[in-house]
């Protein structure tokens, strides 16, 4: 086999594992959902859930087949035709329910990524370059404090200051009514700032650690001894080798942005998929739960796989 194909083979192998993971996760989510007390008919009827009423509603909703059979039907439809099914709760196509909100989530995640990744990388690399300096210490203290403050606190404080006291920004962020650039900037400002706080702190620390790790290796020391400047030493010699771990840290932080932003979605009333998933679980809406879980899983796997690919392709030992 030609040596140049090896990295691509590794990439292909990663994709195969990713697919297998999806199926396993789907089963795990199904069994976890089955453990929850009550089914969709009981939840929908609430206090009015007499046994006859529940039986009647189950019959009408077509829930009398065993759950496993319904799940397998959904899985086959998903794998074969990409059909996400119909929500039990409101009879709408899951694809229709998900599409708008996924768009919102991706938009929020995208803007946050554009803001936070460059800042985090610059700060992390800077801190590593000038390790031990005032700048490094300031960044470290700042990131530690940002990690320690929960996001609902950041979000609520931001709303109090910028929306209630100063009146500069709206307290709510809608996906829908952003008709001009200024309106969009205003609507996204607070959620993006809050989320950037949460995700950047991790990225900064991981970047700093990864770069420092490579700076400590003999070959970078060699570069320094040969007379390379400090910045050339870090950017040209150390950074490419630190890229793998950095990419993984970035991917981990970003994967949080799709499914884990429930607090920010709640406080700013932003209609994203995290809230959709919570709704789905609380109403035991199996097709919607599964579809959301798949979306989170795919986005997570996609990010991790990209990070792995970056690591593989940037590894000089595999590149040759």
């Amino acid at each position, binding site marked *: 086999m030609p040596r140049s194909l090896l990295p691509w083979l590794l990439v292909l192998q990663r994709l195969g594992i990713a697919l297998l993971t999806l199926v396993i996760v789907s089963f795990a989510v199904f069994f976890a959902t089955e453990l929850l007390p009550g089914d969709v008919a009981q939840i929908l009827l609430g206090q009015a859930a007499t046994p006859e009423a529940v039986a009647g509603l189950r019959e009408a909703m077509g829930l009398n087949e065993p759950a496993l059979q319904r799940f397998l039907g959904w899985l086959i439809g998903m794998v074969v035709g990409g059909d996400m099914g119909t929500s039990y709760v409101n009879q709408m196509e899951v694809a229709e329910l998900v599409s708008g909100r996924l768009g919102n989530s991706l938009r929020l995640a995208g803007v946050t990524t554009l803001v936070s990744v460059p800042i985090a990388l610059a700060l992390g690399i800077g801190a590593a370059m000038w390790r031990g300096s005032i700048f490094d210490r300031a960044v470290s203290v700042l990131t530690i404090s940002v990690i320690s403050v929960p996001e609902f606190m950041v979000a609520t404080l931001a709303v109090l200051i910028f929306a209630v006291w100063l009146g500069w920004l709206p307290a709510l962020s809608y996906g829908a009514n952003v008709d001009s650039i200024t309106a969009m900037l205003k609507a996204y400002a607070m959620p993006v700032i809050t989320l950037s706080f949460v995700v950047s702190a991790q990225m900064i620390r991981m970047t700093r650690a990864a770069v420092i790790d490579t700076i400590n290796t003999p070959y970078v020391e060699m570069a320094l001894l040969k007379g390379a400047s400090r910045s050339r030493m870090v950017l040209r010699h150390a950074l490419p080798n630190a890229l793998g771990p950095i990419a993984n840290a970035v991917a981990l932080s970003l994967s949080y942005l799709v499914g884990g932003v429930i607090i920010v979605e*709640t406080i700013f009333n932003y209609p994203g998929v995290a809230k959709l998933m919570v709704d789905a679980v*609380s109403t035991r809406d199996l097709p919607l739960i599964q579809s959301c879980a798949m979306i989170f899983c795919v986005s997570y796997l996609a990010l991790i796989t990209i990070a792995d690919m970056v690591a593989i392709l940037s590894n000089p030992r595999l590149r040759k």
Partner: protein
Amino acid sequence: MTKLPTNWTGRDDAMVEHMIRRGASRRELLKMLMASGVAAAAGGSVLLRASTALAATPVMGGSMRAAGWSSSTADTLDPAKASLSTDYVRCCSFYSRLTFLDEAGLVQMELADTIETDDAQTWQVRLKPGVLFHDGKTLNAEDVVYSLKRHLDEGVGSKANSLAKQMTEISKVDDLTVKIVLESPNADLPTILSLHHFMIIADGTTDFRTANGTGAFVCEVFEPGVRSVAVRNPNYFKGQGPYLDSFEFIAIPDNNARVNALLSGDIQLAAAINPRSMRMLEGQPSVQASVTTAGNYTNLNIRLDMEPGARADFVEGMKYLVNREAIQQSVLRGLAEIGNDQPVPPANRYHNPNLAPRAYDPEKARFHFEKSGLLGTEIPMVASEAAGSSIDMAMVVQQAGAEVGMNLKVERVPSDGYWSNYWLQSPVHFGNINPRPTPDILFSLLYASDAPWNESHYKSERFDQMMVEARGSLDEEKRTAIYWEMQEMVANEAGTIIPTYISNVDGISSRLHGLRPNPLGGMMGYAFAEHVWMDA
């Protein structure tokens, strides 16, 4: 000049305004104010302030955004399935009912022109002519028959199934007349038809992705779990209202976020705000509070069929031990009305005003505890976040108990599973009951011998007979007399201590007018949209 006590706050203003709207007389109000330490002269000016707030002329146009507290993909435009305030608000703006309850709790006609009966068992409903659905169809008897019959079909999953079951025949007489025959006489049918679930939809409707009703607003956007946008119905049959061009309804589950959105002007109405947030509203000229005491309550239940509640003296002692004023003032921060241990609230027209709440009397309590032989025995009281404010109430009772040598222990349990594992089960526990419009519904749900939610396991044959008698009677005076006596029976004989009726507080923008309390719940019984207007 207004001379108010130094601790007078906007919350007190709101309470006074609420009492006036409920129809309290000037004399009653002054008595109430004097009791809380307001001098007569100052009391007069408070009343003046509150009454001017009520009088104003509606302005047409504008749009508003209101926020409830819960929303999910289970949001529905199907009135039969409506289960939360969010659904009720939407249903009220898109559909109409045959009847509705006004501020005084009296039945008014909406789509119905008249509802008549001779024996409270066979009813004739005559509809208003020429009412148009949003799609242009004219309302007729078939729509009403279809809308009501749906509740009997278990496949629909109606929340009102158990109430609807008593309608054994629902049939069309002519284009504008419907006949309803009940299983047994029930004079409350017009009130039952005013419940949100009995909104009228067009014959044959099965698709609820949008709403086709006869209501004041037309549904433009409906995204479950996100928002709805409603625009004015130009053909609205009432001739007056709605005043708004459009209104948007969303939900912000987090209380602080909801209050913040109101303060920043993003929304003009924040429903059901926590009394603890009232401080944030006070001193803000741009917002105010609208208080409704519809009859929601958190109560202390002592099961009469097991120890310690089987000893009548223990129950009697507990009734004297509960310090209602302390609960009203410190636990609920003044946003409540004192209760007299029975479920029919002051806003209900059958409320018995002669039944005075039991006064806090530690000496009498101690006497009864001693007689019961339980003084000094440790008795657990089960409380949980699930029953709102119950933990704080339990602390007040525990404290009072400690002072007379009664060893009550607050047993705090998690919310999850509270209603199935502790409520109705534990010997001494807290419950929480939402307002219901008629004494009959309350009594048959909570106090009849076979009541599904008989919290204290109260059993009285005489009570059951009186309930059936009042239900079938068309004689208002007689019904009132029976219901008054039943309230006394519940207060004196049952083991449910109802210390306060808890007020619902909606935060509203000062630009919003026309909001009045309603016995069906907060936000004007969820029907505020067609009645409110915005300052230009």
